């Protein structure tokens, strides 16, 4: 059963089975679902690299499924995140309605993603892409009636993306005569310039929608916020990475053969950087924790796109490193937010406060998660960011590095706000009986953040598979060791020394401050403070959480006023109005239609010479 058929078969069969079991034996369902994902994960792990494992003809198209080092990288991400999110949801979703529907779509999404990474031809890629889109759409609208307009927005943008891919597929088929990747990749250089350009742009739009590149991102904040937390973790962690997978293929396998490669690269790199900067600014002013993380995801995807687009060995290493790592830490952060929601029923940062003593493990997850996102050493985010900056500087993208760095620094603002509003600050009475979430929810999130620490100290562990994936893309990776990363100029950092320095100093300082006067230490509540000499009363609210970054908002002025979302809405409204006027043409009166026919004929006769070059 160690084959792609096994992976897809088990996933899709379990999807249907979980829907049926929901009505028969609900208790068995969770066990079967988790087992199925674990088994497929094991198969993915064992799968030998064989780009043409399964081939069959479907009408005129040759369908090819197979695994390469590149697809293995993404497949393992899906396997790990799929397993952990399902483990997490077995507790999180307890007692909700329509769980059969939920698990079926969840597994369909996982299966769709496996299909995408193992497709070696465009037709099956498109097919699985649609499965993934449909099932994720179903989960976006799962929670409430409120979700429907958001789901619609997601669907419209996904449709734009899907049609772009479809048109590109047709163009490729017409010009190359095949839909197999191996044939497309080799003969793409022979197509005419204009067709090449339109194919690349269409594919980039198609994949860009999923990875929420600006200006195609407007669906993401809503869809990430409204979908159930376990799925949001998978959504942001793995599903959005399918766009990255596609963009990587388009850039290095197709666009690299054409004359406009350098321009596409530069434009895409800047789009990624601007996405990162603006999404970070938007994230700073959110009041909903999940929406904040959604914008943060868009920003992080921006870094990844920039890294891919630069196209130097180090930048691709950085992009793929961040791809995997973002999957881990953002999934963990969404799970932590979900855990808070699970216990308090809210993700509103103006409302929540002081949960650190009630949910210490969730706090630990969130803390390590934000350190990883912000890129502060010694966690994994640092190694990724370091490689990204170095590659940008080495490849003479000086202003790009400033934009990326500014966005990365501004990220501290929203990350601190996230952890401060949820876990720190005043403890309120209404959250007195909040308890930590069960272990089955803690294990997934803690494992993921521990992974970011391990990879942070030993980036070589992750760079090993990444360099084989890059070999598939035709790029030789830069030298590295288990703990040492090197840039293009030969400068290096040793994560092991850094970790040791931080670790030793932290332990010394922490022991000192703990042992010193140990017996006297007594915990006082957060109400037991002075504020300019006044003692706060029992019900006084002293939490400073609303409009946390007002000064920053003032500093930015009106920079964030123009909104892409509003632009789309205005366009939609204008078009609606236009079509409303066009409606009057169809009066429903037979005589009017007869007049149209006559008019048409008259026009045809009068202008026939001009149009067809023939006089009727």
């Amino acid at each position, binding site marked *: 059963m160690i084959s792609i058929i096994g992976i897809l078969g088990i996933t899709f069969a379990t999807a249907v089975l979980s829907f049926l079991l929901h009505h028969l034996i609900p208790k068995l369902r969770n066990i079967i679902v988790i087992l199925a994902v674990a088994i497929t994960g094991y198969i993915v792990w064992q799968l030998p690299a064989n780009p043409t494992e399964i081939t069959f003809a479907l009408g005129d198209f040759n369908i090819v499924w197979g695994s390469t080092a590149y697809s293995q990288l993404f497949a393992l991400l899906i396997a790990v995140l799929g397993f952990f999110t399902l483990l997490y949801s077995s507790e999180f979703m307890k007692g909700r309605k329509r769980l059969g529907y939920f698990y079926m779509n969840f597994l369909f999404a996982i299966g769709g993603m496996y299909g995408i990474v193992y497709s070696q031809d465009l037709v099956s890629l498109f097919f699985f892409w649609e499965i993934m889109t449909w099932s994720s759409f179903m989960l976006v609208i799962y929670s409430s009636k409120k979700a429907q307009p958001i789901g619609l927005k997601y669907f419209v943008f996904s449709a734009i993306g899907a049609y772009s891919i479809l048109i590109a597929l047709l163009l490729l088929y017409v010009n190359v005569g095949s839909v197999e990747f191996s044939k497309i990749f080799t003969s793409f250089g022979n197509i005419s310039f204009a067709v090449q350009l339109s194919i690349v742009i269409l594919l980039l739009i198609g994949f860009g929608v999923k990875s929420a590149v600006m200006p195609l991102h407007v669906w993401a904040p809503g869809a990430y916020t409204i979908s159930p937390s376990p799925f949001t973790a998978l959504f942001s962690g793995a599903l959005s990475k399918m766009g990255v997978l596609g963009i990587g293929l388009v850039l290095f396998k197709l666009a690299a053969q054409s004359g406009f490669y350098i321009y596409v690269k530069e434009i895409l790199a800047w789009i990624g950087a601007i996405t990162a900067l603006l999404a970070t600014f938007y994230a700073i002013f959110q009041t909903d924790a999940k929406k904040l993380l959604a914008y943060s995801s868009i920003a992080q995807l921006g870094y990844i796109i920039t890294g891919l687009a630069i196209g130097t060995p180090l930048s691709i290493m950085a992009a793929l490193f961040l791809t995997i790592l973002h999957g881990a830490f953002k999934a963990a952060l969404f799970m932590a937010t979900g855990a808070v929601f699970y216990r308090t029923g809210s993700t509103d940062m103006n409302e929540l406060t*002081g949960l*650190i*003593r009630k949910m210490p493990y969730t706090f630990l997850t969130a803390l390590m998660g934000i350190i990883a996102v912000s*890129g*502060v*050493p010694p966690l994994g985010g*640092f190694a990724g*960011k*370091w490689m990204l*900056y*170095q590659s940008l500087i080495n490849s*003479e993208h000086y*202003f790009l*590095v*400033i934009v990326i*760095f*500014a966005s990365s620094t501004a990220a*501290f*603002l929203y990350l*601190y706000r996230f*952890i*401060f509003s949820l876990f*720190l*600050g005043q*403890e309120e009475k209404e959250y007195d009986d909040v308890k930590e979430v069960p272990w089955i929810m803690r294990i997934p999130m803690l494992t993921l953040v521990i992974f970011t620490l391990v990879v942070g100290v030993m980036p070589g562990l992750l760079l090993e598979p990444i360099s084989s994936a890059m070999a598939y893309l035709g790029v030789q990776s830069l030298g590295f060791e288990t703990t040492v990363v090197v*840039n293009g*100029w030969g*400068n*290096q*950092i*040793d994560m092991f*020394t*850094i970790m040791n*320095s*931080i670790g030793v*100093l*932290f332990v010394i*300082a*922490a022991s000192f*401050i703990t042992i010193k*006067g140990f017996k*006297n*230490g*007594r*915990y*006082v509540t*957060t109400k*037991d*403070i002075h*504020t*300019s000499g006044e003692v706060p009363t029992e019900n006084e609210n*002293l*939490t400073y959480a609303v409009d*946390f*970054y*007002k*000064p*920053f908002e*003032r*500093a930015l002025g009106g920079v964030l006023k123009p909104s892409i979302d509003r632009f789309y809405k205005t366009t939609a409204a204008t078009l609606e109005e236009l079509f409303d006027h066009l409606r009057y043409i169809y009066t429903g009166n037979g005589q009017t239609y007869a007049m149209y026919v006559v008019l048409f004929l008259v026009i045809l006769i009068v202008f026939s010479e001009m149009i067809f070059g023939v006089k009727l």
Partner: protein
Amino acid sequence: MEINWIKIIGLIITPIIAFFTGTLYGGSARNITARIQNRYGPPIWQNLFDIMKLYSKSSTIHHGVMQHLGAVWAITASTTTLLFIPILRDSELFVNLSFDGDLIFLLYIMVFGSLGMALGAGQTGNPNSAIGVSRGLTQLVGYKVPFIMALVALMIQFKTTNLNDLLAVQDSFLNWNIFQSPFAFLAAILAFLGMMGYKPFDIVFAPAEIASGPPSEFGGKYLGMMQTSRSIFTFAKLVLFTDLFLGGAENFFILIIKTYLLYMIPLLIGIVNPRFRTEQSVRFFWKWPTAFGIIAILIVAY
């Protein structure tokens, strides 16, 4: 594996030297401020005595584990920053760990301490702390932009991101980076004003308004450790700037002269100036310092 005793001794004595130097600089700053304000001011040793006193006090309370570790976090970050900066030129004793890190690492580890302190301050539940943190992080975004521009300018000029290589190219007086890339120096020194947190950029701590902001609920050993960290960090930043722009130092005498002169810049500017509001200071950093940074990059890149 052979144990490099010289390195170990260097690693141990560097933070101690940094602590004493930083504390004495702080004391002399209080003196100078006092003289300008027509007061006598405390003795130069006062800051050292203050910290000793704080450590000797017994704290009876704490606000939870994050507050407990906030100061630990800060001192870890400031000492790590120090250990990854070469203190003297061509000195085996004081090269420390500078070959295993680089400028980008330093940029990030410098924020690590602020983040830890902010988290510690967050758990105390004092609204003044939260306000201070909000201001501090906002201001951080302000001055980091010109600072990274200055660093990028230096990095691309000498095609390296390691401080030791930057030191090696500044081998004579005229080769100091302050003369080689003056615009980068301007951008960096203006960002340095924000980094040091003297006026006009002291709204983060604003003692009269928000009761010194982030550390307002810290006392006793916690405050002592924070002051220690601040002294070490001040020295680390001064040495970093000396290494970046003033050609480093061959011995401690020259190091003291150079760092002390550098220290005077934010101090003297601070004494005679009123305070910026947060958004004003961010805008300040995004105007002239950023323009200097852009010029610096343009000059070396094209």
